[in-house]
Each structure stands twice: as C-alpha cells, then as structure tokens.
C-alpha cells in the first residue's frame, strides 16, 4: 500500500501528469454535458438529485416545524397521528412530530450514506480491479478470491453483525455498505483492464519506458474511468436502498432522522397499516432518490458505451 501511495505522490508532483489529468477532466466534463443534453431521463435524474441535495444541505433551516418537536393542539395534548392538514402537510407521527419536516431532514442521511459509501466502494473496487488485472499472477488470485468472499457475504446478516460490533452510527453503516458494494466494481473494472492492458498503446507506453504505476494510473485508469463512474452512480442507488433497509430494521443511527428510520418507527408504532401519510412520503422519497441515481447511471452508461449514443 505504501509503495502505491508513494507512487501516486510522485506522479502528482510531476507537472506533466497534473496537466494531463486536468486536460482529461475537461474532456470528461464535455462528454458529460453532451450526453446529458440529449437525454430527458438523465435531466430528470439530475433535477431530482439537485432537489434532494438542497434538502440535504439546508434541511434544518427550511422545515416548517422542528422535526423532533412534539406538536400540541390548543389544549396542550399532543397531536398524535393527525392526518395531513394545512399546518402539517404530511400529518404527524404517533409522537406528534411533523412528518413533512422529517422527510426533508431525512434526505441528509440518505445522501451522505449514498454518496460516501458509493465513493468508497468504487475507489476500492477500481483499485482492486486495476491492480489485480494489471499484475495478474498471485496478486490477481489473492485479490479476486477476496472479491469472491465479498460476494459470498449475505447482505443483512453481515450488516446486522457489523453494525452491532461497530455501534449504530451513520459511519458504521457507510463502512458496512462500502465493504459490500466494492465487489461488483472490482470485477467489472478488472475485466475491462484485462482487455486494455493487452492493447498496443499499453505496449508502446511500456516500450517508451513508462513505469508500471504510470501505465496503470495514467494510461489504463483514464480509459476505464467512465465505467467506474457508471458503477459509482449505480452504487449510490444501492447504498440508498441499503441504508433504508438497515434503518428500517432498527439498526440505523438513532441520532439522525432517516427515511428508513421513519418507516421503522411507523412500523413499531403499529401505524404502518393505516397512517399512510407517515409511510408514503419517506417511501416515495427513497424511490425517487434511487430512481434519480438510476436515471443518471443510465445516462452515464451512454458515455461508457458509444454504441448506445449512436443508436438513435
């Protein structure tokens, strides 16, 4: 690991490398804009994501009520399980809390878990795929067997055990999800790198005297990066679902309101059968966020697969 980080540092200090990375970023951005311009679904995805992102960032300041406050009527008794009204758009919970405000604040947990877990997972997965495919031999054997083991882990039992061990916090949920999500990226990136490393440009880079690290991170990685982005987008969707799952089962971060947790509370309060105003908003929010991530992923797929772009 130290050898690798050292290599990356030395590459970063090389101004040719930073220059190339900058040029590459500009190019990627242009393709990104091009592809989204012609794709309505991708635009819807981006718009939804933007709304959720604003909710996540400014949630606590834009809610009509404090989401943890117990709302009371004029004679001081709590407004338990009130149906939607002009005062409480989505009604109240069994504790008299405002559902609408909770939905807005809940976006933050989903977004944090979704993006950070996906980012960690894709970073791990891309590196493992790249290193194992490039070096081959026992390195590949070891890394791919670890990937197989990760594939064999059953999701829920693994999450329950680890969250129990690490303690119920949003960070342990992120770690657990990342530990399970990197596997698919690793496999897909690996197969892509296997094909790229045999291409003539890699051989000529080697002939010119490029080091292994340079070939891996400056030649092969940029060529497989679009695929990694695609997997990042899908990973966000999976991570959001996973977070909702975990919270619904009661293993969520107790200090943070999340959509999964709202469903869990509705369930434990025995209100899930009739208090539709308490159940539908978080459920639909999860669905919309996952949909947004999938729409974006679907559009990104067109970046990685030019055939889809030219099909129309």
């Amino acid at each position, binding site marked *: 690991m130290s050898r690798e980080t050292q290599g990356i540092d030395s590459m970063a200090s090389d*101004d*040719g490398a930073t*220059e*190339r990375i900058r*040029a*590459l970023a500009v*190019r990627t951005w242009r393709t990104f804009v091009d592809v989204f311009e012609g794709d309505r679904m991708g635009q819807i995805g981006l718009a939804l994501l933007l709304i959720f992102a604003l909710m996540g960032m400014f949630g606590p300041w834009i809610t009509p009520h404090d989401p943890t406050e117990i709302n009371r009527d004029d004679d001081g008794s709590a407004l338990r399980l009130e149906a939607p009204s002009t005062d409480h758009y989505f009604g109240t919970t069994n504790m008299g809390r405002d559902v609408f405000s909770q939905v807005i604040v809940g976006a933050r947990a989903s977004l944090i878990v979704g993006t950070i877990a996906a980012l960690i997972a894709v970073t791990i997965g891309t590196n493992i795929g790249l290193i194992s495919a490039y070096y*081959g*031999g026992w390195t590949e054997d070891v890394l791919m067997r670890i990937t197989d083991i990760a594939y064999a882990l059953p999701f829920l039992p693994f999450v329950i055990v680890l969250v129990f061990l690490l303690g119920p916090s949003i960070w342990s949920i992120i770690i657990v999800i990342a530990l399970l999500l990197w596997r698919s990226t690793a496999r897909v990136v690996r197969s892509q790198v296997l094909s790229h490393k045999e*291409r*003539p*440009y890699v*051989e*000529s*880079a*080697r*002939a*010119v*005297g*490029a*080091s292994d690290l340079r070939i891996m991170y400056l*030649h092969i990685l*940029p*060529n497989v990066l679009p695929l990694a982005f695609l997997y990042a987008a899908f990973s966000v969707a999976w991570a959001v679902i996973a977070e909702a799952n975990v919270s619904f089962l009661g293993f969520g971060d107790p200090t943070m309101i999340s959509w999964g947790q709202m469903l869990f509370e509705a369930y434990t309060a025995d209100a899930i059968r009739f208090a539709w105003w308490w159940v539908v908003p978080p459920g639909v929010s999860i669905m919309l966020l996952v949909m947004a991530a999938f729409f974006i992923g679907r559009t990104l797929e067109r970046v990685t697969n030019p055939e889809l772009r030219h099909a129309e």
Partner: protein
Amino acid sequence: MSKLELDDLRTYYRMEEGWIEAADGVSLSLEANETLGLVGESGSGKSTVAKSIIRLLPDNGEIVDGSIRFDGEDITELSKRELRRRIRWKEISMIPQSAMNGFDPVYTVGEQIVQAIRTHESDVSKAEARERTKELFDDLGLDEERVDDYPHQFSGGMAQRAMIALALAVDPSVILADEPTTALDVVIQDRILGTIKEMQDELGTAMVLITHDMSVVSETCDTIAVMYGGRVVERADAETIIKRPKHPYTLGLRNAFPDITADSQELVSIPGSPPDLLEPGEGCRFAPRCPFAEDRCWEETPQPETHGDGHVVECHRADEAEYLRKEANRPETWRTDD
C-alpha cells in the same frame, strides 16, 4: 565494436506442455547507421528477438541463454528497472507492429511524445519538448498543427509517422521497427521507409527492420538475416541474400515473390507449414519442408558456418549451393507428391 550484438540468444516461452523455443541460438550484429533486415514467415521468431532486446516479452517469455551486447555491455544482465531507465527508448526504441493503436486514445499525440521526451530527459522543458515534437512532425511530413490532435483523428499512415516521431524523439542509437509498414499501402510504405532512411542518415541511427516482405528489405537493408523456426538460417549483405542465397529456405522465399521485371512467372510457394517449436529436438527445422533434405538433416542440427565474406549459412548442403539454386528455380522441385 558493434553497436548491438546478439550472441546465441535463446528466448523460450513457458507453456504447460513444455518450452516453446521461439528464438533458439540467434546471433546477429548491427553497426551504427546500419540497417539489418530480419525476415521470415509468421512465427519464425522475428518479433521475439526484437522483444528480447528491449525486454518486452510476455510474462511467460524468458531469455534462457545467450547475451545481448549494447555498446559492449550485456543488457540481459541489467535489472528490469535499470533497463527501463537507461536503455529503453533512450538508446533502443521501437516502432511497434500496430502503430495505428500504439497511442493511448485519451491523450493527444503531442502530449504523449512530449511525455516520452520528458521522461527520459528531465532537464527539457515542456515548451522545448513540444518544439522538438513539432520539428519531428515537420521532418516526417506531418502538419505541425496535428500535435494537438487525438490518435483517432489520424489516418493509418499519419499514425505510423507519429509513431516514428515517437521512436525518434530522444535520438536513440538503435530503432527496432517491427513490420512498420505492414498495414499500409505501397505508396505510403515507400514514403515512410524513405523518411526513416533519411532520418537515419541524418542521425546515424542503426535499425533492425522486421518484416516478411522481401521487396521491402531488398530496397532498404544493408544486411539481411533470414529466420526460420527460431533460428537465423542465413545472413549476409543484402545483395548476396537476394542474388546468391545458399539456404534452401531463402531460395524458396525468393521464389514466392514476383519479379516484376520478368515476363509471366509462376509464383512458387514452399509447401508445408511452419514448424512446431515446442521442444523440437535435434535435426534441421526446415527439413520437413525442404526438397533437398537428406538423412543427416533429420538427425543433426546444422550449425552456422561462414561461407565467404560474412555470409553465414546453417545448412548441411550449403557447399552445393550452385546446384541447389538451379534446382530451386524449377517449380517442380517444390511440388509435393501428395
């Protein structure tokens, strides 16, 4: 002292079934400014020899014996890292077989050449490297503005030239050109070979030209080495190989190419297929396809022998060359009964 000297080079590929003897006792030498043509059919070990020199062999390839002397220093002894730092590109560069795909698609061609220059000459500034790249483009008949284009914006011939620019970027003393013009049409091929030749004369660079095209070597090379089944079966100066070859394989190879000055001419190919190099054992490797094979050809491996001025032949019957040459000219000789 020769610029590059291969002595009894043996490069084998490890397979589950045993060793593939892809280059088996190859001896060659190359002087400064000389062009050596390495000819032979596919699978004869030409590329293996080139890849052994700058050690770009696949993982299962191994130099098991012999030496490669560059300016007198045995570079097979160098560590991979040292070879990469000191020899690759700086001293010995390569024009790969498929130049068309030889550039990384995500960077401009200019960026890649500049990077190559700066990797090997750290004191060169970016602007200088870019300037030099433009000059190279100009020398090779490419528009200077094209340095900012991506590889896919180049045509085959242009990509090939850009690859040559890359190979010449740091003034190497030896260029290994592995079928540099195979995918190109004859006109472009001629121009590219002409350009390489000019650059070579200007810089005094030596070149190993690997090809299976006899007409290309006869035009460009000073000396020719003919490879068959992992061995150099005959080598001499170009004229001798073209006009007075002694090895039956070279004779056959010559028959397979048309002479455009002659009247209608029947092209005669060599019957059979290239040998299996998986532990071939004793005997001449060409014997199964050779119309002149005798009993001893099957039993003893012929050793390289010098016949006259630097003309090295590996054939038991090289002394009877006059007779063989006459026979080889008759198409019936190469016809198999079955």
